[in-house]
């Protein structure tokens, strides 16, 4: 009998000899992502090669077996995403990394993961689109992250902006996916995935590793278990634990029954998903804000662009332009309430993006009444320089 894949150990003891010891390292974003996943207890990687996500995959192929995990190169992205679902229900945390074209292929699997409330993490290392586009960075998939999978049903998407965040936010992605029983997307750009920066690996017992709640933990025996019931986030019994769980992605009742359909059952089933995530957006989402006090204008950014946007905000303040800086760490659920609370009344909101204007839409929806104007600053094919953002700010404010 083959050995079982090693399950995650408690965070406060050393995960094992092949883990990076706490300290400072110089790694690529892709590598930091994998190290974060391993630290979070991920032991399955199923992927398909696509530029610029290849480094992530190759690094995973070396590291996963070293820590008792399993790596497989599947036949296409659809198979990769489906393998994640099977692994998750089989009891393991699972990860894949892809780019735009592969992300499009994974949407059906993401949709059933949303409906069946399957924890898993998908990293989208965005490249230019549409179509085959190009292999350099973009932020063109951020809307697809929320609306790409067919049907209703929200999702969680994070936007790392540095190598350190590739490590930290991948761990957070697993934490959120296990806590909320949902697929979580890490929307990064080719820039962040390929750059090399110092990475600080914290002491192991400071890394928060979350496991899914199981009915066994809550004292619910198999006979009384409702696979999609009990709580806002249903406890999840995995296959092989004697709970006779039937995985379904059709509209279902709380016990998994799929033939007693009614419009009410349909509404209840889907609305539950919506409330679970969107209803808890405040607790799930994170933003980073600077220079907000008495600022006249505001730059709202995310991902790689926030690096140069920060520089632009600093220089603008030095020029006396009173520009605040706000970074979305969580893209979805969109932190609408949080933004409305934190942002006072401003004159102009600038949204620099490596696309033709995507997150500017929910930003406008949220802050329409608190500003005079929202200005999109697009840049395709090249990261905004601080001078470029600043020139647009000066143009608008003069």
């Amino acid at each position, binding site marked *: *009998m*083959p*050995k*079982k*894949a090693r399950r995650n150990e408690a965070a406060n003891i050393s995960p*094992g*000899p*092949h883990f990076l010891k706490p300290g400072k390292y110089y790694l690529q974003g892709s590598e930091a992502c994998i190290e974060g996943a391993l630290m979070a207890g991920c*032991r*399955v990687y*199923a992927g398909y090669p696509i530029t610029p996500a290849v480094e992530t995959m190759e690094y995973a192929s070396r590291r996963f*077996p*070293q820590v*008792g*995990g*399993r790596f*497989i190169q*599947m*036949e*296409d992205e*659809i*198979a*990769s995403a*489906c*393998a*994640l*679902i*099977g*692994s*998750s*229900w*089989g*009891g*393991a945390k*699972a990860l894949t990394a892809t780019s735009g074209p592969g992300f499009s292929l994974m949407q*059906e*699997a993401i949709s*059933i993961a949303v409906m069946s409330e399957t924890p898993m993490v998908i990293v989208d290392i965005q490249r230019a689109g549409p179509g085959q586009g190009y292999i350099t960075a973009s932020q063109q998939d951020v809307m697809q992250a929320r609306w790409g999978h067919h049907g209703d049903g929200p999702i969680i998407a994070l936007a790392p902006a540095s190598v350190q965040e590739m490590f930290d936010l991948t761990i957070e992605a697993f934490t959120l996916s296990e806590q909320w029983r949902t697929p979580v997307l890490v929307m990064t750009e080719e820039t962040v995935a390929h750059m090399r920066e110092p990475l600080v690996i914290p002491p192991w017992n400071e890394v928060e590793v979350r496991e899914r709640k199981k009915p066994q933990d809550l004292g619910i025996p198999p006979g*009384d278990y*409702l696979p999609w019931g009990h709580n806002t986030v249903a406890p999840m019994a995995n*296959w*092989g*634990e*004697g*709970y*006779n*769980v*039937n*995985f*379904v*992605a*059709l509209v279902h*009742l*709380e*016990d*998994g*029954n*799929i*033939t*007693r359909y009614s419009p009410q059952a349909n509404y209840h089933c889907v609305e539950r998903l919506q409330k679970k995530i969107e209803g808890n957006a405040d607790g799930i989402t994170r933003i980073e804000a600077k220079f907000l006090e008495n600022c006249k204008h505001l730059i709202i950014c995310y991902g790689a662009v926030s690096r140069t946007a920060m520089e632009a905000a600093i220089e603008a303040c030095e020029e006396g332009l009173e520009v605040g800086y706000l970074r979305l760490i969580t893209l979805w659920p969109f932190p609408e309430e949080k933004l409305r609370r934190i942002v006072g009344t401003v004159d102009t909101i600038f949204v620099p993006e490596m696309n033709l204007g995507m997150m500017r839409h929910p930003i406008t929806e949220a802050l329409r009444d608190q500003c005079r104007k929202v200005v999109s600053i697009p840049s395709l094919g090249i990261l905004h320089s601080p001078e470029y953002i600043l020139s647009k700010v000066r143009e608008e404010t003069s």
Partner: protein
Amino acid sequence: MLKYLKEEGPLGPRLPLIFCPGCGSGQVLNYTLYAVDRIIEEDNVRKENFLFISGIGCSGRITSHYMNFDSAWTIHGRALAIATGALLANPAFKIIVFTGDGDNASIGGNHFIHACRRNIDVTILCLNNGLYGMTGGQHAPTTPLGMITTTTPYENREAAFDLCKLAEIAGATYVARWTTAHPRQVIKSIMKGVRKRGTAFIEILSQCPVHEKASPVAILKRFKRDTIPIRRAEGPAEGKTLIGEFCDLDRKEWNESYQEIIDQFLAGSG
């Protein structure tokens, strides 16, 4: 075998089965449970280790919410990818995949050949009725030449796959073809497949009385009449379909092989 089904759930009854009267899917479910029952008894395998995965179609409904086992009703053609994932998480699962000819050889074709190539530890039961039943009788990659279906109103002009040949070439280590009119052979093959460490592909010709517009009894009689076991076929099969076991090999299974890689590192860690 009712003990292996969920007749009632907390929120209502789940039976009768959704299948049309005389559908082969119900029969394949029954044969599978007979086989699984014997394996649990004879091989001392725990019921918890079994995992049934299906795709979309009439065959997909077998696991929809009836099984009193761990099971999954997944997306069209992707059951084998999900099975691969489950085995990555826990190589000890005994996985049986219910699929159809369209689910497996059309949309699922890629996953089918790669699962066989990798020789992952699954038993694939392909219920072949030569068309897409659930959606109304469209033609499939296994529809015979000349047949009239809802999407071949002017006769089907495409050749049909021989699924067993496909499985064999792709690398499956146990390949067999039977029909729903051969229950004991089906049960034996399923047991062999589950016991085999590797990909077992069992094609089961299955009746669709509604779309073939014939009584189930008539189709079962046709299955017996128009098939010939390999052992008895000498020379060309005279227009009959060959049934029997096409291959039964031994080849290292995917997880078995990958475990050797993991063990290198576990050994080093002391």
